């Protein structure tokens, strides 16, 4: 049947709620970015949704959120698509870490910012150099630009700049993901593919948030 192709089967194996969370994850990415601009924060904050969906629904849904968010951004700024692989990696990593319960405790979550920042910073620098010839854009571009003007070779400038910038961005990102996961009510969590990780009592985990009992009508 036309509707029973591999995408449909994949989604089915992830459960009914995943397919509805992917658009929300994409929206969270965008709104995070918009608010960061609104508050004039020198951060991207555009991967909250990717990591959130990866941590709660699994690696592939997370990767899909990252990919689609990047694709939608690329409509208005096509060179952004060069960085699509990074967003995919964020999602995959979030799924992997989520499965191991990293997002159950705040300090493990905090530490997870490091591998995310490494992907974003190192990978970002690599792609900026390979694809864009070292021409970083936006706020990062300003930092890279000033380093180059100070005499640093452009490749080094990219690496020096992008890693710390990404770390500063990923720390609040993962903490917000932790805060959101802590607030997901148990009755909803049980419907998510990786919900079992957060519902099992092992390790110092986040609270159960609003309990299911209050949702009984």
């Amino acid at each position, binding site marked *: 049947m036309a509707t029973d192709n591999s995408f449909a089967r994949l989604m089915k194996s992830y459960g009914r709620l995943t397919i509805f969370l992917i658009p929300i994850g994409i929206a969270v990415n965008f709104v995070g970015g918009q608010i960061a601009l609104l508050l004039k924060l020198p951060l991207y904050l555009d991967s909250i949704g990717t990591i959130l969906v990866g941590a709660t629904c699994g690696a592939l849904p997370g990767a899909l959120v990252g990919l689609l968010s990047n694709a939608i951004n690329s409509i208005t700024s096509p060179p952004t698509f060069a960085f699509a692989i990074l967003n995919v990696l964020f999602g995959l990593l979030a799924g992997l870490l989520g499965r191991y319960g990293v997002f159950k405790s705040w300090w493990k979550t905090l530490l997870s910012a490091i591998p995310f920042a490494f992907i974003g910073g190192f990978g970002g620098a690599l792609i900026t150099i390979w694809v864009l010839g070292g021409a970083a854009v936006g706020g990062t571009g300003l930092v890279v630009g000033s380093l180059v003007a100070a005499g640093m070779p452009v490749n080094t400038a990219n690496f020096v700049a992008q890693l710390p910038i990404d770390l500063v961005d990923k720390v609040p990102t993962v903490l917000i993901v932790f805060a959101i996961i802590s607030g997901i009510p148990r009755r909803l969590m*049980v419907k998510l593919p990786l919900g079992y990780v957060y519902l099992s009592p092992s390790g110092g985990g986040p609270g159960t948030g609003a309990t299911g009992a209050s949702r009984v009508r």
Partner: protein
Amino acid sequence: MRRCGGAVVLVSLHDVRFTYAFTEGPALDGVTLELEPGLLHGVVGMNASGKSTLCALIRGVVPHFHEGTLEGDVQVLGRDLSDWDPADLSQTIGCVFDNPFTQISGIKDTVFEEIAIGLENLGVPREAMIQRVKEVVERLGLQALIRKNPNELSGGQRQKVAFASIIAMDTDFIVIDEPTSQLDPEASEEIFGVIDQLRRHGKSVVLVEHKIDLLARYADSIVVMKEGRVVMHGPTRDVLTSDALLDANVPPPEVTALARDLADAGKELPFMPITRSEAYQAISRRMEGRPRGHHTA
């Protein structure tokens, strides 16, 4: 199949108990209930009395979507709940609930297409779809909205569109859970008009509502719930004038409460009204028996 007066019983619950996963205490605690088809059944009760769980159960949302432990015998449209395919069941029984925002799909940019969404998913041929949507648009008076973007409508308008897309699927049985709780009085009246239309078309409706005055006008039977149990189930008039309603902490219709107060003050009305028009009749009749003029003594 269970039969009742020649028709298949709409819903039959026998000693049903359901507890949501991760909660303490059952949401439904020994519910026994039989509903006849072709009628509008109102369901009333305080918050957390199990009304919404009952609706979810009838549609199979509980236990297929909301996990938990289900005990007891549940038959829907003559078939045991466990024999129903969940997708079939949710397509056989229409459902409208209180949030106008989550019932708009968000993927269509005209109301006309939004109403057709269920029909598209069911593979209905285009011409039949167009006819059906036109019919529903006319019945619900949505002509002015068909070109508008459903994501830009007001709450009341969205709720009407939500109704329209379910009605377009032409199910014989619709479960409606507090459709007017987020709407103003005017929009609520319009929605109740839509629901009354459904009843007059011979549909079976289960309607959970707090607005008891509106239920008094339109419902054929009322189910009163309290703490997960059915406290009373009977014809509207019997239930609304009974004490079971008060026991369940459900406020009776305004006019019924008024009549009770009058009775307590020694000025009993000839009969207990449940709607405004009945109250008018009752009060007029009582006043006819009175001499003209007004004495303070």
